[in-house]
């Protein structure tokens, strides 16, 4: 009696944009992330799922070193992006964050115009030499974020005046304006209605071609919809990582199974 396993066992180092090796994160005395190793594929969406407080957001934030802003947070282990250790003392987190963009849970446009929101990143990184170059960057970013048609006539209206879903897409446009390679999304749709969510998900699917996307989500359906690979975190441990269809139909680990079927929260 042979079992056919549909699992691909090909997740090796050779095709990996982000490689984490034995990452530990401590908040003061709390050991928040325990020995996480994972390979994240380029040009694909990887979803992190898990119950609240499982460390998925914390781990996401180690990838662009947003945890540096928290005094008591300490990171051990290695995280490589294109084989460069981002926790190397020579790495400036500001430069890293231009390469690894982030979209947050709550749409958080700056209280400025739509134009200025998108222009901020290119301006501080000196990506545009003149006004017309900047305009170009802004148009293409908004276009990639699927927002251009909706806002092209009111670029100088405040960004905070847009609807929730538009604001979130504006935040995505802002992130891609600095042409990052990786986009991290921390529950980007949790504050949006289903239609706006669908639009953002469609956008994520389109962006996959050019970016490596890591998304944290509380909605398993969303992870199932948008991601190619899924990682399940529980109590700071990476329990299981694999192809999304496998994780959601026949997970290997009982904890994953219990979580996705709604047996513990």
């Amino acid at each position: 009696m042979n079992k056919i396993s549909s699992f691909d066992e090909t997740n090796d180092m050779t095709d990996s944009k982000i490689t984490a090796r034995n990452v530990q994160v401590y908040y003061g005395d709390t050991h928040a992330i325990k020995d996480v190793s994972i390979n994240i594929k380029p040009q694909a969406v990887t979803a992190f799922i898990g119950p609240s407080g499982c460390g998925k957001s914390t781990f996401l934030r180690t990838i662009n070193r947003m945890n540096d802003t928290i005094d008591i947070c300490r990171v051990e282990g290695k995280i490589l992006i294109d084989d460069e250790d981002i926790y190397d003392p020579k790495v400036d987190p500001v430069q890293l964050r231009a390469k690894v963009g982030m979209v947050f849970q709550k749409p958080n446009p700056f209280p400025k115009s739509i134009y200025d929101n998108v222009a901020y990143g290119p301006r501080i990184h000196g990506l545009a030499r003149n006004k017309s170059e900047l305009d170009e960057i802004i148009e293409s970013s908004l276009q990639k974020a699927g927002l251009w048609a909706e806002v092209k006539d009111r670029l100088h209206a405040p960004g905070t005046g847009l609807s929730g879903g538009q604001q979130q897409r504006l935040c995505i446009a802002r992130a891609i304006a600095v042409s990052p390679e990786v986009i991290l999304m921390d529950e980007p749709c949790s504050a949006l209605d289903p239609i706006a969510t669908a639009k953002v998900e469609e956008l994520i699917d389109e962006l996959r071609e050019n970016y490596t996307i890591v998304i944290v989500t509380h909605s398993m359906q969303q992870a199932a919809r948008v991601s190619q690979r899924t990682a399940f975190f529980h109590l700071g441990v990476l329990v299981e990582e694999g192809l999304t269809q496998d994780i959601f139909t026949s997970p290997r680990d009982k904890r994953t199974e219990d979580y996705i079927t709604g047996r513990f929260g």
Partner: protein
Amino acid sequence: MTDVTTNPASETPASRKKTSLLTVDALTRKRNAAETRFKAYGVVAISIGVFFLAALLWAILSNGMSAFQQTVVSLNITIDVARLEAAEKSIVKTSKYNAIIDEALIAKMKDAGVETEMSGKDLRKMLSSGAAATIRDDVLANWDAIKARDGQVMQYDVLASSRVDGYLKGRVTREALARDKNLDAAHLDIVDQLVAKGTMVKSFNWDFILGTDASDNRPEQAGIGASMLGSFYMMLVVLFLALPIGVAASIYLEEFAPKNRFTDLIEVNISNLAAVPSIVFGILGLAVFIQFMHLPQSAPIVGGLVLTLMTLPTIIISTRASLKAVPPSIRDAALGIGASKMQATFHHVLPLAMPGILTGTIIGLAQALGETAPLLLIGMVGFIASNYPDGLADGFFSPNSAMPAQIYEWAKRADPAFYERAWGGIIVLLVFLLTMNILAILLRRRFERRW
């Protein structure tokens, strides 16, 4: 409570009685009654507050408004250059001028048809003892113009004495004058006649707002202008020291400083400093700025420094509160696209915190403007404000007073005429505070309306 314990079984949901929503049960009624009572307490509390505020305003306005009017007598003085030159050459110069005033006054009374047997000297009691000095100052200031007008008649408005002024404002009664050696009923008869003729009138008292303090026996000449300048220079010092230092300190503490025991200690100390009595800052200023650093006594620069120390905690606390109120998502957003911490703070956090910072600063300034105690300790007492400062540097470094100290000074003087000025001073001070508060509101509106 009691009905639950007496019959617990009946309270279980299973055996709950069927009730109608149309009848209000006893518990609900009690609850509603308690709510109504509480609302009534609130209304009573507010009413008491409003009553006291109204009483205070009424007291201030009724006592102080009269300070903005002053009784003057217009005298026609014939310019006699030879006589003026002689007066300037004599030893007691003002007494010569007094003689000129006496003549003018008698002439005026004759014109008005007022008969009296009093001598000029006696009549002059109706005028301010500073009247001669006022005319002389004008003569000296415009000596060339005066010389050119030799023989012509010029009209001078001379201040009436504080008692005459008080009589016209109803402060001084004929009965009270019986005990007064300076003035008697005969004077008041003349005053009544002069008023009826329109020679003696009450006019708006610009000197009170713009003038300097005067000595104890000339309350009619005392003004708050010099100490207003003193306050102004102090506020300049406070604004240009406390705002940048306070905002910089707050930004550092809130955004950059590591959170450890040392910064905790600083934080606690700042909060405590805000509660330190202002007189402590006064004695500190005296010890450090005057005795140790040898800065000039009674100077607005020292007052400003002391008030800066006093205002800093207020500004720091309010600035930190408004920085804290900026949602962290804005910082995250900026950091997330690769802004440095400083860019995030100065491009995004600070502009959003600006209305709060400005409000805090203006409230702090207003508080400093009304502060008296520390100023008394560093010598910024009222009677010093009897000269205007010459120029900007002098404004900071020469002795002066401040509005609240001036008010305190007047309030403790014996003559009831000063009492009226103290109230008047309070009105001026309140107008200033009100203006600053309105400014704070306008600034906040303006910055908040940006989006």
